């Protein structure tokens, strides 16, 4: 128990801090900045979770938007169909707001689990494949999900799903981003993480020391899909509108770019590049207004090309912020 409390006191404290900061965030920043901020955090969840598969386990998945869509639609569907199942059960008076928040938490979690299940179903047969083949399978899966959603009338089809309550706020999004980072961070420093890394480094050697590589790949894939689903749930409940065209191949590709740009196998890198890639097109918007030409995507793409040419290992390589802060660290890296 001692270790458990010691290790989790600060994380719980940080989440409480997010709760306290929420009203400040909402009153101090204007809506435009707030929205970008929230999207940054959602993208952080996406890129950090994809890094678990692409960076740490060395499998190349490009279907992350598919899992995000599964999570988004699953949680939004439950929210829309059963608007206040907790309230109905308990018949609460003044606590209705809190109940809705709890219900939202459960729904997002549910979306995560449905996405994780999808990850398991897709991963188990396809993770026996290597390299390019897996990429194509995951790409296909993403498109299948999108087309299914496009043709399912129950979730609005091509019209999309609108009127979803906008419950996701700074607290939820930042807490989930924090949890995602924490989980992946701790996982890769555990025995499971060493398993993931060994699969990336050399599958034959990993099997020779008793690592069931398919099992480890599936594990990474399921956890990654879970967080993609969470990100989807948050996205749905922030935008209040879902459309299958939000989850195209381009979205998957955006996340892959974030992972590659940040460094395959660096959580810090994923966070930084998720922020950069979300903010950069917005930051370049004044330029577009000035010149009346849409230079944004040109500069954005050019920035990517230049970065990849000069730093092919990504911004951070496989290094973490803690590697730079080692000076301040007293304990070894094994128990964080």
């Amino acid at each position: 128990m001692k270790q458990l409390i010691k290790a989790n006191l600060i994380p719980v404290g940080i989440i409480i801090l997010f709760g306290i900061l929420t009203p400040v965030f909402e009153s101090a920043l204007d809506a435009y900045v707030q929205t970008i901020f929230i999207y940054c955090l959602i993208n952080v969840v996406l890129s950090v979770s994809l890094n678990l598969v692409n960076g740490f386990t060395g499998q190349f998945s490009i279907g992350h938007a598919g899992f995000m869509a599964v999570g988004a639609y699953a949680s939004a569907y439950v929210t829309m169909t059963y608007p206040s199942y907790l309230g109905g059960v308990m018949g609460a008076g003044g606590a209705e707001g809190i109940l809705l928040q709890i219900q939202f938490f459960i729904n997002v979690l549910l979306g995560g689990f449905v996405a994780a299940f999808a990850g398991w179903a897709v991963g188990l047969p396809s993770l026996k494949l290597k390299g390019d083949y897996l990429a194509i399978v995951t790409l296909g899966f993403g498109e299948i999900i999108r087309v299914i959603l496009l043709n399912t009338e129950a979730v609005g089809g091509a019209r999309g799903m609108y009127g979803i309550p906008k419950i996701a706020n700074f607290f939820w999004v930042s807490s989930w981003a924090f949890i995602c980072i924490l989980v992946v961070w701790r996982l890769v420093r555990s025995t499971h993480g060493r398993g993931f890394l060994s699969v990336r480094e050399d599958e034959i050697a990993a099997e020779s020391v008793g690592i069931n590589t398919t099992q480890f790949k599936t594990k990474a894939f399921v956890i990654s899909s879970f967080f993609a689903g969470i990100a989807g749930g948050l996205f749905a409940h922030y935008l209040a509108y879902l459309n299958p065209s939000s989850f195209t191949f381009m979205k998957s590709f955006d996340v892959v770019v974030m992972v590659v740009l940040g460094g395959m196998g660096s959580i810090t890198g994923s966070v930084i590049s998720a922020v950069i890639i979300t903010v950069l097109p917005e930051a370049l918007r004044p330029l577009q207004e000035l010149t009346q030409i849409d230079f944004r995507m040109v500069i954005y793409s050019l920035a990517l090309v230049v970065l990849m040419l000069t730093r092919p290992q990504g911004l951070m390589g496989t290094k973490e912020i803690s590697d730079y802060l080692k000076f301040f660290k007293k304990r070894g890296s094994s128990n964080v």
Partner: protein
Amino acid sequence: MSEKCLLDVQDITMKFGGLCAVNKFKLQLKKGELVGLIGPNGAGKTTVFNMLTGVYRPTSGDILFQNESLLGLKPFDINSLGLARTFQNIRLFKSLSVLDNVLVASHRKTAYGLMDSILVTDTRCELEDKARADAIELLKIFNMENLIDEQAGSLSYGKQRCLEIVRALATKPQILFLDEPAAGMNSTEKVTLMKIIDSIRDKFDLTILLIEHDMKLVMGICERIVVLDHGVIISQGAPQDIQNDPKVIEAYLGASVLEAHS
């Protein structure tokens, strides 16, 4: 089949298309033995290893470990039964630290759940600390305890070979297959390695099967030697007998050498 026989390889054959890489290979390993497997390049030694460790499935024949067949098992299953190996072309987890390389192999000792990892429970910390201490203990045998934070890929060639042996040992095997452990080492390193191989056999109660090109090393430590040429066993027995076996000399040096001698 005697009880003492730990590994019983019964006539395994491996065919790659029309090529018969190994033909009816037979071997019985008794507990505690140190056996050498030698033969010219391309004789099929590594193919034998790959069959024994589950990388290839033999075309025919059977492999019994403690009277149970290993056929059709995956490499990781075979490892968990207690058979570990090293590779001829070093296969370390190059960008991981030396310590992590060993810890990957001791994953059965650190079998805590996902939740333990995420929440950092006491179970996790205890098991991690213990596995870490054990790993350092193993590395001490090869005098590598001061290298634990180095990247495995940055070690010298000899050290990398040693690390592979340590990694194999960390899986707590009963039988250790060493595929050319001394390749690329200088003569002093080879002598040290010979001593270490002999000592780990006693220390961990191991049975060792060893592929090696260096005759001095093989003759020095092996109790029994099996000679393979073109996939067929051409001779086996005590080192002295092998050394003088005309068939072995022929396989290594060619028939004309023998004629010239006689």
